[in-house]
């Protein structure tokens, strides 16, 4: 694991962005997440790792209430975003999702033009007052996603015609365009080749300067490369949550050690 750049990074701030307390998630009778308590800091990359089916994606989807779309899913406990309970009755999930953006495992651009893909979020949230403002938002978002130079001459081409890596960066640009405060990424690189993965990882590191990023990943190397904080999930429990450096060099829980050394998962 010589590509772990563990020493390069320091956490810029200690301000809390998301606080989760005793979160339980049930799918029907299946208790999928048990007593998860975690603090996610602003301007930090937090990685969720763990074996398949351990509940890391489920927990991620709780953070912007995407689980609401599943009928049988029930969430208990408290999740606070800037000290406001996002599961409060007064919270409209639509407003929440504008603040907490999401990038999915499989690149899923809309079957529309590249421009329309990025402009869609700002349009529905009324972020641009004029065409020029919208153009500006599209350009900065694409630049931030390191895609501008590749697509600036074909903004009207369909987003689905791009390569896999480009599509995923387009999805990131689309999520960034609504200026969220938190960006959730659900295994954003699992469908990408190593070169595209490297580009996206670099991008995640850049994005950290503006947002709090939460990334779910299967790859421990990726967690080690991009994150400052790492949470290890196992069978629906949060086993250990600490600085990435600590988790990968000196884990406290034996299960964490087994996982990162490849004995379970």
């Amino acid at each position: 694991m010589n590509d772990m750049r563990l020493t390069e990074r320091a956490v810029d701030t200690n301000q809390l962005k998301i606080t989760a307390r005793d979160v339980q998630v049930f799918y029907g009778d299946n208790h999928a997440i048990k007593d998860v308590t975690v603090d996610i800091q602003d301007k930090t990359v937090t990685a969720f790792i763990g074996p398949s089916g351990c509940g890391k994606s489920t927990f991620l989807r709780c953070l912007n209430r995407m689980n609401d779309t599943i009928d049988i899913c029930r969430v208990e406990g408290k999740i606070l975003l800037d000290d406001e309970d996002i599961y409060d009755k007064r919270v409209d999930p639509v407003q929440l999702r504008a603040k907490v953006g999401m990038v999915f495992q499989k690149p899923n651009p809309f079957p529309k033009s590249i421009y329309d893909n990025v402009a869609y979020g700002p349009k529905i949230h009324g972020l641009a007052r004029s065409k020029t403002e919208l153009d500006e938002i599209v350009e900065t978002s694409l630049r931030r996603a390191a895609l501008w130079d590749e697509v600036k001459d074909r903004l009207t081409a369909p987003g689905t015609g791009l390569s896999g890596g480009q599509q995923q960066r387009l999805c990131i640009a689309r999520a960034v365009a609504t200026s969220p405060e938190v960006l959730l990424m659900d295994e954003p690189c699992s469908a990408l080749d190593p070169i595209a993965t490297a580009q996206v990882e670099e991008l995640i590191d850049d994005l950290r300067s503006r947002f709090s990023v939460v990334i779910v990943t299967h790859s421990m190397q990726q967690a080690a490369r991009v994150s400052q904080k790492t949470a290890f999930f196992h069978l629906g429990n949060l086993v250990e949550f600490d600085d990435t450096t600590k988790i990968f060099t000196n884990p406290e829980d034996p299960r964490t050690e087994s996982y990162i050394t490849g004995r379970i998962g």
Partner: protein
Amino acid sequence: MSDATANSTPATPSASSLFKQDDRVKRRNAAEKRFKAYGLTAIGVGVTMLIILVSSVLSQGLSSFRQTFVTLPITVTQAEFEAAEASMLKTGKYKKLIQRGLEQRLATAELGDVVSIKDAMGLLSGQAPADLRMAALANQTWPLRQEFRFLANGRVDGYFKGRVTMEIAERDSRISPEQLELSQQLADAGIMETRFNRGFLTRTDGSPTRPEAAGLGVAFLGSLYMMMVVLALALPIGVATSIYLEELAPKNRWTDLIEVNISNLAAVPSIVFGILGLAIFINFAGLPQSAPLVGGLVLTLMTLPTIIIATRASLKSVPPSIRDAALGLGASKMQTVFHHVLPLAAPGILTGTIIGLAQALGETAPLLLIGMVALVQNYPSAPPAGLEDPATALPVQVYIWTTRSDPAFVERASGAIIVLLAFLLIMNIAAILLRRRFERRW
């Protein structure tokens, strides 16, 4: 030489050579061949049936697009027009005017002395005086002087189409062999000719004794009005229902019940919808009988399940990742559906709608029950008022004509079937083209 061969080929051929099929593979291949043969036979039978059907309809019905006409010079002065309109038997007066034209024409063809004028008048359709009267009523400048093309009698028309022979005419009270010979003479003189029959598409239905004057005009308008009603009601209601059930409704016992009922509705025999329409729309709501409005409402009920099922299937086929993407960006449910899901489902919805419409266009049974099976000789007026005027529909017109005794109506009915099939074909082609045009890949 012998050394080399000994080294390059195995001493004994192996038990499982790739060049030799073993028994299992042979049996499998034979089964596959048999299955292919069954499939081809099935297709062959289907195609043969289709060819028999289409060719029988075409051979019987194509002649209805041609009709025998008699061309006569007609002069009507204003005084004659007013006198005719003032008399009790108006068409009788017009018949005299036609007879004058016919005599004139026979004289110029130098046939005047050879034939009896009574026999010659008998060659014309009973519809001829009425047609002349309509032209006179619409006329503005007097005197009316014009070459008129009158319909020939259905029997004469049948003679030129090979349906009526001399032997039949001998036993027929409405035509004699002499008249058929006379019509042949007129045809040789260029007075009588068989040509394209626009009236078949535009005229109203004729009385049972005048097959030559029967047309599809009213049935055509009735079907058109009904399709307008069906499209205006079934598409929005069907799509709204599907969107609600598919995207918004919670999955519980009630929505399950609704789903089962919708699927059951699709299987209800259409005549039941006719009884429902009779009971509710006519007897209870007091809507007029024979009206395209009521027909359209009944067909809407019949078409709804088809549209709902097709729409739900195409909504389901939109990948969930698109919904996730939109919801993840903070789009509301409505925005997700209308901005992303519905455009992607549109080809499927369009196809389902057109197939539903085609089904409704060909439906007969429910229309019989709500009184659209009648001899309607006035065109319905323009919509929306015309939706309440009596009308028939294309398939019902086929039914009406097949029940009439005059064999000339067999030809008419087959002609109407051709028109109906042509419309169904056009609609299905439109469905295919629309689907190709709007289909998007993701």
